[in-house]
């Protein structure tokens, strides 16, 4: 039930609604944005970060929670049934799986990579710690960008993403993203993804925060789910083996330091399995479940940065690991869905961000980092937020959508949102919703070259685990695009590379060496990584 404070505030929001429709909300200047971010964005909160003391990024700043996992002990050192890492290493000579391309991760990037690697003639296997499709891809609601309209161009898309990323995007990666975008949307369309189109076949496209052209393609607000279920179906149609509920717990290298497989763990039986491969693709996604700085997250259950940990131990450097995306509109109320994503499409369709007095305090289509910082300022400094059980929030004025675009728009364009709130008796057509920033995306990740390879030979990376495509802030709709562009790219290149690989002797020496480096750096810990899954107790210990 809404609190009295909420109900009083809703009345004020309703009172100003008519006058706000069509109002020209000024965009911030570059200087204003810069100042706002420095003062309010969580990336600039010094207490949230620490400096790494070991590994390829020694001396770099990363979130505490990530540092704790990057600088932890390998799971292989304390496995039940194995005396030490040598005992695991002894099993490498008899692999349980022997494939060309091993893909770690069963989301959109992993599926795209698998399809292309299969297309390239390689013997492919996917290993995933949950089910195929339990991934952030499935939850991407808003859409996928691609410059395919008459008034648009890849160059315009490039400019939008570069400015949105604060000019830190790797140019060669961004070039690939925007120039291969239209082809990837066509690829998905031809696989049978049902994009929103008009009767003539024109894609129905909208703005996202920070776009200068309407290039957001969508499948209602199930965009990622629609893409993921089609890709998964295609993987199954191609008979690509999927080993699910099985996590990669360490990479295997060969004696020349090239990626050559992974040590796997069946999460249900805890059995250890060895997968040998000629090339490996890490497509393990993000890290929302590490709850940086105590934020809730919109991410799926398995988003624990496992791929980053594995690659880092094997010698691959990270890029921009100190920058995270807090989605401006996470659910602030009701508590059952605290932190869940409210798609940016809600703002694309015209809903404004409104404070407790009913004032629209910003243009709703600023970039995500700016919007999140602005909401935090509105609550923390301007004291214009509305209290909730978990903290506070501001309104996202959803009823505006139907006043602007007509009755029925919400059900037709954002049915997922309508359903999510209706389960708690909130009709978003009638009342606005309370939102606050939620940890949404890992902007940084493993550094790759244009062909998708990390610093470790034959170790490819795709999807959210990559760093550099989006610079220090990603635009809406560029992630669904990047998992397809870079997933396909990694799959093709990993498959092509297979032909020239003659693996040497398999080894886990890099794990030992990294452990020694930690000791030399004076890191003494009983922490173990990768984390694999988070643990939640919902306050049991306090009851």
């Amino acid at each position, binding site marked *: 039930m809404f609190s009295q404070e909420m109900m009083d505030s809703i009345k004020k929001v309703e009172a100003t609604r008519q006058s706000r429709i069509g109002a020209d909300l000024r965009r911030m200047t570059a200087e204003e944005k810069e100042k706002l971010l420095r003062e309010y964005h969580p990336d600039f909160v010094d207490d949230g970060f620490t400096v790494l003391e070991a590994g390829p990024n020694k001396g770099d700043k990363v979130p505490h929670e990530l540092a704790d996992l990057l600088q932890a002990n390998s799971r292989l050192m304390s496995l039940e049934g194995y005396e030490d890492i040598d005992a695991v290493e002894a099993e490498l000579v008899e692999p349980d799986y022997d494939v060309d391309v091993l893909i770690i991760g069963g989301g959109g990037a992993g599926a795209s990579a698998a399809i292309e690697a299969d297309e390239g003639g390689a013997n492919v296997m996917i290993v995933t710690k*949950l089910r195929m499709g339990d991934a952030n891809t499935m939850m991407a609601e808003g859409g996928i960008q691609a410059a395919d309209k008459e008034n648009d161009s890849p160059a315009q898309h490039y*400019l939008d993403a570069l400015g949105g990323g604060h000019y830190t995007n790797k140019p060669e990666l961004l*070039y690939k993203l925007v120039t291969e975008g239209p082809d990837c949307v066509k690829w998905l369309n031809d696989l049978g993804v049902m994009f929103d189109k008009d009767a003539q076949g024109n894609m129905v496209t909208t703005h996202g925060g920070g776009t200068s052209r309407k290039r957001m393609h969508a499948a209602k607000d199930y965009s990622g789910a*629609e893409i993921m279920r089609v890709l998964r179906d295609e993987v199954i149609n191609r008979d690509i083996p999927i080993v699910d509920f099985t996590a990669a717990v360490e990479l295997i290298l060969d004696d020349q330091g090239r990626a050559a497989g992974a040590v796997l763990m069946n999460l249900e039986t805890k059995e250890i399995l060895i997968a040998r491969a000629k090339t490996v693709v890490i497509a393990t996604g993000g890290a929302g479940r590490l709850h940086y700085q105590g934020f809730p997250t919109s991410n799926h259950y398995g988003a624990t940065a496992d791929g980053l940990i594995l690659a880092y131990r094997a010698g691959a450097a990270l890029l921009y690991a100190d920058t995270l995306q807090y989605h401006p509109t996470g659910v602030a109320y009701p508590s*059952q869905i605290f932190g*869940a994503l409210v798609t940016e499409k809600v703002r694309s369709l015209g809903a404004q961000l409104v404070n407790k007095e009913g004032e629209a305090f910003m243009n709703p289509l600023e970039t995500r980092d700016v919007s999140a910082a602005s909401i935090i300022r509105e609550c923390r400094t301007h004291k214009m937020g509305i209290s909730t059980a978990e903290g506070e929030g501001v309104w996202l004025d959803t009823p505006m959508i139907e006043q602007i675009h007509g009755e029925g728009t919400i059900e037709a364009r954002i049915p997922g949102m309508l359903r999510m709130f209706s389960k708690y008796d909130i009709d978003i057509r009638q009342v606005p919703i309370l939102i606050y920033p939620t940890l949404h995306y890992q902007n940084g990740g493993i550094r790759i070259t244009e062909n998708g390879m990390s610093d470790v030979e034959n170790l490819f990376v795709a999807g959210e685990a990559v760093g550099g495509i989006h610079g220090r802030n990603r635009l809406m709709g560029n992630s669904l695009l990047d998992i397809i562009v870079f997933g396909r790219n990694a799959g093709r290149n990993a498959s092509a590379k297979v032909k020239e690989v003659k693996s040497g002797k398999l080894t886990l020496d890099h794990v030992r060496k990294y452990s020694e480096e930690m000791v030399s750096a004076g890191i003494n810990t009983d922490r173990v990584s990768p984390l694999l899954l988070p643990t939640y*107790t919902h306050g049991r210990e306090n009851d």
Partner: protein
Amino acid sequence: MREMVNVYIMGKKYTVPEELTIMGAMEYAGYQLIRGSGCRNGFCGACATVYRIKGQTELKACLACQKQVENDMYLATMPFFPLVKQQYEIKDIRPDEQIMMQLYPEIHKCIGCNACTKGCPQEINVMQYIAYAQRGEFEKCAEESFDCVMCGICSSRCPAGISHPQVALLARRLTGKYLAPESEHLTRRVEEIAEGKCKDMMESIMNKPLEEIKELYNNREIEQ
């Protein structure tokens, strides 16, 4: 002190805070979930759950991440259900009536009991979309089934052994690939890029000094 309720997880009693979802309640009770937890946001279908409230006969279905606990709720999770998934080459099949008959003939055994629709946590009219599939009306089937999270509860209730989510997925892929009109602007742009027509514009931006790029970005025209 929080308000507490009694729930029976797979028959075993636990006392949990009333504001939690079923998934939250299981974790509060001490479960470390491996199966039955995916997106935790109502999109992936990993956490299909059936329950009865003590004293009532009606069996209800829901997603554990989207349903708040109630007192005296007897629940069982269904993290997997064996659906029939037929394999096909999407480029070789066509959206005609025969394809459903060929791949999923059991849809014609539907007895009209409507248990599928009653069980759907997404409130989809499942029986209706199966009827559309029987008649080869794939676009209608696709539209009606669009919000399906493939949790499989419908199939678990079906006396005819239909794998509804797979039927719907086939209908949607046929619709997306063959029945929806072609996006000519997309086809054109893909060709232009392949012919190298976008390259000059890209390079002219990429080769500019950073200050000029910033100038361009800050003053770019935004489509209304």
